[in-house]
């Protein structure tokens, strides 16, 4: 048998629901919560899908990128909206690193450099 070269397999996404095989009660709680989070509310399901897509890039989850690219396209988003959402995620991620440089700056000053 060919050696697996990756832990990530696209077909595994479909098996997400099977995680309830063990600890079904906890899995059910999670999926109920998940379903409620993504329902139309003060934010539309479409806006939530785009947020999920941005976050998926930030946490670098290939399953979520797959699922929420498809989901947001199904909900009618444009390519421009997809890429703007990804850039929002990237900007926060980059900004979150950079803003910590304030600590470095403080330290540098503290050290009297």
């Amino acid at each position: 048998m060919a050696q697996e070269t990756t832990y990530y397999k696209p077909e595994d996404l479909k098996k997400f629901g099977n995680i309830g095989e063990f600890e079904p009660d906890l899995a059910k709680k999670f999926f109920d919560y998940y379903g409620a989070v993504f329902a139309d509310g003060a934010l539309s399901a479409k806006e939530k899908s785009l947020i999920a897509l941005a976050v998926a890039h930030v946490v670098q989850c290939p399953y979520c990128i797959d699922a929420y690219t498809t989901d947001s396209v199904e909900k009618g988003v444009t390519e421009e909206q997809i890429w703007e959402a990804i850039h929002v995620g990237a900007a926060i991620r980059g900004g979150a690193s950079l803003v910590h440089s304030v600590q470095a700056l403080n330290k540098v000053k503290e050290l009297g450099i």
Partner: protein
Amino acid sequence: MRSLLARGSELASSKEQLKILTEVSGKLDLPSFSDKLKEAALYPLRPTGVDILQVNVGKLCNQTCKHCHVDAGPDRREIMNRETMEECLVALATPGVNTLDITGGAPEMNPNFRWFVEEASKLGKKIMIRCNLTILLAGEKYRDLPEFFAEHKVEVVSSLPYFQKRRTDAQRGEGVFDRSIEALRKLNSLGYGIPDSDLVLNLVYNPVGSFLAGGQSTLENDFKKELKQVYDVQFNSLFALSNMPISRFLESLLESGNLEAYLEKLVTAFNPVAAAGVMCRNTLSVGWDGSLYDCDFNQMLDMKIEGKISKISEFNKSVLDSREILLHQHCYGCTAGAGSSCGGSIA
């Protein structure tokens, strides 16, 4: 692009298409559509009545869209003749048959199209036309069609795959979006799609790729906002349809390697509420040669209705109302998610 038939593609054969759907379903261990309906207590599927007569007046079209389930195009020659149209009019006159839904190809290219609409209009029935929009700009012969539609109060149902040029042109051909917008403006100028006008203009959205149409009302809002703001175009309602895994869309699914995933997705998204409202239950579909089908998709798969009646000339409403609808794996396309039919989402 030419039609599958003109290219001599194996997929031009309905048998081949059904064979592929059966094989892939077997390989993926997908339940048969009939079994799925059994689970939902909807089997055998029976009509609620022939309310709509959907007449496909021919496969000739000025476009060759990538996803076309009819395999229509400028190279197709199948056209309904006047005699068959007369038979359709007799059926349409039957009490309880309330709507004539004219489809194609581009139905306007049938030389007897205007006569057919005029005669149907005399019967006082609702008339719908599946118009691809660009035909309205396809030459002098067609320029006054919007006025003709308005005169007979024809409801116009037009495909517009997306509110942006790129995706629309990718599916329907270069330049189709700009011409569609021009045609929509012309229809608007006559009152079509304008609030409080009695001239109805509905749009049909179907995905440009191998994904499902989700959230009809969100999509309708997006289409309305974009088309109004950017192009000053208005319409009444948007119908979101999923693409049927047959004919040229089947070809693109095979070419892109997406057929298995698409079928699985359709099956996973099966919705019993949508299944109860599929269009074959209130529609009878007539082919260009007068043959009868449960819907336009069955027509393209050459699945003629079962029973004693096979032609529109033999139309008998009570016999047809009690027929059993023929089903195959493509039917999952009508029952995925919120469902889709020629009238849009059902559930």
